C-alpha cells in the first residue's frame, strides 16, 4: 500500500492531541497515511498556510472556518470542518488584583457559578475591563461574550478584547496588560502556578458542550480527495476514541509532552487531561466533569446546529446579517462526510444532523444507528436553548 503524506498543521495545545496521537500511535499508518505534523506559531499563520494550500489539513478553532468562509479572517477561502476534534477545555481567569476587587464586591469565589461571578466581575473595576483571548474568532471569546451578554446585567459600554497568544497570557497578566484571561490549558494553570492569576470558571460552566477545535481543510481539496479524507477521518476518530479511555491519558501526556510536539513539562498537561484544577496557587484541586472530551457523547459529530450557534454569535459581534451568517456557517460543518466515512466503521450516528443546543441538563440516551448514543449535558448557563431547526 502506498503511503499518502499529508501536511498537517497544529498549534501546540493539549487539544491538538487527536492529530498527534493518530500519527504517533500509527492510527494514520493503518489507513495508509503519514501525517507530517507541522507546529504553527500562531492561528493566523496556520490559517494563511491552509488557505494558500501549504497545509492540507489543520487543527483549528471551531469559529475559524466559519469566519474564514464569511470573509472575516485572512485570505477568503471556503473551509470545511470535517469533524469536531475536541469539546470544551477552556478556562476563564482573572489577575490577582482583579480577584481581590471581585471579593470586595461580594464574589464568593469558587469555580462553578457563572451567575454569582458576573456581577462582581463587571463591577470590580472603575475602568474598562481588558480581556485577553487567543484569537478574535475563538470559542473563548464567544463564550465570554455570551456569558456577559446574557447575564442580565447592564453591559459596560466598552470592554477591550485583547488578542494574546496563549503562551504569553500569564505574562500579559503579570505585566498588567489584561484583567481577565480566557484561554485553553495548560496556559490558565500556568498563570496560577506563576501566582499572577486565579481561575474563576471553566468554559463548561457557560456551555456544557461547546465545540472547541475542528479538523479543517479547504472545501475544494475535500471534494477532490474523498478517499484520503475518509482515511484521515477514520484515523483521527480512532485516536480520539483512544484518548477518551481514562487509562490511556497518562500515555497521552507522555506523547504530547515530547519536544517535537508541545514541549511542555508533564505537570502542565495533567490538569486538562485529568480534569483537576487548582484555581489558586496552593488551593486544593477541584474536579471539573467533562472538562475536555475527544470522543464520548458524540463529541466528534459536526452538528450543523453548533455551527449555526457560532454563526449567530459571530454575526452579533461583527454586525453582520444573522441569517446569512447562519447559512454560511452551517455549510462549513460536514455531517454528510462524517456519516459517509465513519458510518461503515461502526461509529454510532445520530438520527438528525442538527439538535436543539442547550436542551440537556443531564446525559440522555437518544435515537442512533446503533442505539448506544448518549448526549449531554449541553446546557447554557442561563438555561436558554438555541433551536436551529426552528429557524429554517
Amino acid at each position, binding site marked *: 500500500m502506498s503511503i499518502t503524506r499529508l501536511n498537517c498543521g497544529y498549534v501546540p495545545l493539549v487539544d491538538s492531541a487527536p492529530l498527534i496521537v493518530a500519527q504517533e500511535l500509527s492510527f494514520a499508518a493503518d489507513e495508509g497515511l503519514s501525517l507530517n505534523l507541522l507546529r504553527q*506559531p500562531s492561528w*493566523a*499563520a496556520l490559517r*494563511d498556510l491552509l488557505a494558500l494550500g501549504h497545509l492540507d489539513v489543520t487543527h483549528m478553532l471551531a469559529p475559524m472556518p466559519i469566519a474564514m468562509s464569511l470573509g472575516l479572517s485572512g485570505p*477568503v477561502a471556503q473551509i470545511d470542518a470535517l469533524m469536531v476534534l475536541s469539546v470544551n477545555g477552556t478556562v476563564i481567569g482573572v489577575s490577582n488584583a482583579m480577584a481581590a476587587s471581585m471579593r470586595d464586591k461580594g464574589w464568593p469565589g469558587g469555580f462553578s457559578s457563572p451567575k454569582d461571578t458576573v456581577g462582581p466581575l463587571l463591577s470590580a473595576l472603575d475602568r474598562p475591563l481588558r480581556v485577553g483571548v487567543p484569537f*478574535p474568532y475563538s470559542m473563548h471569546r464567544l463564550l465570554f461574550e455570551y456569558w456577559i451578554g446574557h447575564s442580565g446585567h447592564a453591559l459596560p459600554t466598552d470592554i477591550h478584547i*485583547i488578542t494574546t*497568544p496563549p503562551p504569553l497570557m500569564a505574562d500579559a497578566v503579570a505585566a498588567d496588560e489584561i484583567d481577565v484571561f480566557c484561554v485553553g490549558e495548560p496556559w490558565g494553570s500556568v498563570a496560577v502556578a506563576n501566582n499572577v492569576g486565579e481561575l474563576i470558571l471553566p468554559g463548561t460552566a457557560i456551555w456544557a458542550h461547546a465545540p472547541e477545535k475542528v479538523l479543517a481543510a479547504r472545501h475544494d481539496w475535500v471534494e477532490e480527495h474523498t478517499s484520503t479524507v475518509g482515511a484521515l477521518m477514520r484515523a483521527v476518530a480512532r485516536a480520539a476514541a483512544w484518548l477518551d479511555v481514562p487509562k490511556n491519558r497518562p500515555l497521552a501526556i507522555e506523547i504530547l509532552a515530547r519536544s517535537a510536539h508541545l514541549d511542555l513539562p508533564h505537570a502542565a498537561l495533567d490538569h486538562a487531561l485529568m480534569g483537576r484544577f487548582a484555581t489558586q496557587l496552593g488551593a486544593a484541586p477541584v474536579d471539573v466533569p467533562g472538562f475536555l472530551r475527544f470522543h464520548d457523547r458524540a463529541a466528534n459529530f459536526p452538528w450543523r446546529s453548533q455551527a449555526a450557534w457560532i454563526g449567530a454569535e459571530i454575526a452579533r459581534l461583527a454586525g453582520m446579517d444573522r441569517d446569512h451568517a447562519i447559512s454560511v456557517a452551517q455549510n462549513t460543518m460536514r455531517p454528510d462526510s462524517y456519516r459517509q466515512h465513519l458510518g461503515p466503521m461502526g461509529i454510532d450516528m445520530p438520527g438528525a444532523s442538527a439538535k436543539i443546543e442547550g436542551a440537556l441538563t443531564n446525559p440522555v440516551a437518544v435515537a442512533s444507528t446503533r442505539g448506544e448514543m448518549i448526549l449531554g449535558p449541553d446546557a447554557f448557563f442561563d438555561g436558554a436553548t438555541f433551536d436551529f431547526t426552528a429557524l429554517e
Partner: protein
Amino acid sequence: MKIAVIEPDPDRARDIIDALMEGGWTDVVVLGDVTGLARKLAALDPDLVLIDLANPSRDALEQVSVASAAQSRPVAMFVDRSDDEMTQAAVTAGLSAYVVGELQPERIKPVLQTAIARFQMMSQMRNELEAAKQALADRKTVDRAKGMIMRAKGVSEEDAYALLRKTAMSQNRKVIDVAQALLTASDLLS
C-alpha cells in the same frame, strides 16, 4: 507612508529598515518588544505593519484598531485578491503585512515587493547559518565517537572513522546517527 516593522531580532530589523530606506521609504519604525502591541501601534499610528509570518504575536494583530484623529482605523491583513502570485511569494518568504485603514493596493505593492525580496534573502541566510551550525555540531559528535573507538580498540583515527562508515553503510544509516548512538550508549553505561 509610515511603516511599522515588528521584529524582535535587532539585526534582522536593521536589514529590513535598510532595504526599505533604499527603496525610498524613510518613515520606518521598529517594534522589538511586543508587550502591549495594540497600545504601542495606536501610539505609532502606522499605515502599514510588516511582521514575520512565524512571529507568535501575529494573532495579536488580527483585530487591532488603530485610533487616530478621533477615528478608529481597523488593521487588516493585506490580501490582494488580484495578485495571488505576490501573496504566495510573501508567504513563501515568511512575510505577512497588515494594512491600517484604507490604503490603496497600488501604494502597498512596491513596499511589499521590496520586503519580500529582503525576507527571501534573510531566510536563505538563516537556513545557511542553521546548516553551518548543524554541520559543526555533527563534526564534534563524530570526532567524539572516533576518539571513543580509538581508545577502546586501540586503532588509528583513520581506522576508527572507517569503522563508523562501514557500520553506517551496513545498517543503511548516516555516520552521524551511528556516532550519536555510540555516544548515547556510552553515556548510559558510564
